[in-house]
């Protein structure tokens, strides 16, 4: 007994190190939402406040460019409104505007933080887009902030298709270059050529069909020789994002019930 206690006392540093190290390994490799559910991500009150206040300063730096972008988008939207005759009583999608207060793209699994949360009727699994294309999907929501899985995250799979045909595949980032993303499992017979536009597919409940993602920069057959693998250049500059829109699918509950 004495010897056991002696052993622990002699190696107390090593034991503490081992405990803490394995504790962090558990945190890294457990995908269950149990650990990092509430406090331990950037939407908690302290870190969100820090990012918010730093953002309130840095957001002035880019004001002119942001304004121009928004103005351009507004004109396009006005055009669409004037040309459409649909009524707005039963909208399938609601759109909320939001600002990014924390962005990252240097890791393998990147997350963004935005300044809208439960109080603004944001929930998890809602699509986030910018005026140029898809940004990500919300995954954790606190009272007034939410965390967004960026499309530059190796864990995120998105349904995407060619704009000119209905062949679809799975969009997933390989973690190497933040300007391009990979579209896999596209059937061999689909008519791909360099410069084609890739948009979101209709198979997703999160994004409406046809939101821009990027254009084909190169493609090849994969190892099975049955599917095409495409390198997609993103339209979005993921390093320079500020204003984003959150898309809420009002038919989500119904669609989920249908699929159960």
């Amino acid at each position, binding site marked *: 007994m004495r010897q056991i206690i002696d052993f622990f006392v002699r190696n*107390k*540093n*090593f034991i*503490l*190190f081992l405990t*803490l*190290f394995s*504790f*962090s*390994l*558990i*945190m*890294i490799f457990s995908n269950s939402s149990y*650990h*990092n559910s509430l*406090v*331990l*991500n*950037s939407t*908690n009150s302290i*870190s969100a406040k*820090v*990012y918010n206040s*730093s953002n309130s300063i840095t957001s002035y730096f880019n004001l002119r460019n942001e304004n121009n972008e928004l103005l351009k988008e507004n004109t396009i939207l006005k055009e669409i409104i004037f040309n459409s005759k649909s009524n707005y009583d039963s909208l399938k999608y609601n759109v909320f505007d939001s600002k990014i207060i924390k*962005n*990252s*793209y*240097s*890791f*393998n*699994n990147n*997350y963004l*933080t935005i300044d809208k949360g439960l109080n603004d009727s944001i929930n998890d699994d809602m699509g986030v887009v910018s005026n140029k294309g898809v940004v990500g999907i919300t995954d954790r929501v606190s009272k007034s902030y939410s*965390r967004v899985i960026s499309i530059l995250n190796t864990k995120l799979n998105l349904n995407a298709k060619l704009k000119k045909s209905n062949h679809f595949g799975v969009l997933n980032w390989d*973690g*190497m*270059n*933040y300007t391009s993303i990979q579209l896999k499992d596209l059937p061999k017979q689909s008519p791909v050529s360099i410069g084609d536009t890739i948009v979101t597919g209709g198979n997703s409940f999160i994004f409406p069909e046809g939101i821009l993602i990027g254009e084909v920069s190169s493609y090849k057959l994969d190892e099975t020789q049955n599917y095409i693998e495409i390198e997609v250049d993103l339209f979005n500059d993921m*390093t320079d994002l500020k204003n984003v829109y959150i898309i809420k699918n009002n038919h989500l509950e119904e669609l989920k019930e249908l699929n159960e």
Partner: protein
Amino acid sequence: MNKLTSNIFTAIFLIITQVIIFNNINLFGYLNPFVYIVFVIYYPIKSDRIFFIFISFLMGLVIDVFSDTLGLHAAASVTIAYLRPIFLKISFGQAYIHQVIKFKNIDLKDKLIYISLLSIVHHLVLFSLEIFNFSKTLFVIEKSFMSSIFTITACILFSYLFKTNER
């Protein structure tokens, strides 16, 4: 100001600068210096090791919470905190064994070796856990060394900035 409060202030200052400034540098798109390890580098040598290992873990965890990389920085900084005596022995030799070193008056060459060892080990642990893929070993090593260069430069500059209250 007593030692504990000044340590706490340094820690808070490092965390804030790390998450607001240094996490957003993104040189060449993927290089960020991790300056917060200055805390581990310059933590008083004669202090209680148990407490030091634990506080380094907490430091990493806070950085993790801010940058949504749960566990990565915690694992890396607890590793260098635990291994620090070995690095001290390698870089300062006799002076460390006789307990006479002060960070204030060591020459730049020894300091450079010490900081480089610490930051390279930290980055290797961090990036291999982050990427966690044997087929990308070369990429991990490249990323660690490139970021280390950046971190070492920043740490040296930082240490001159705090020349007055260096312990």
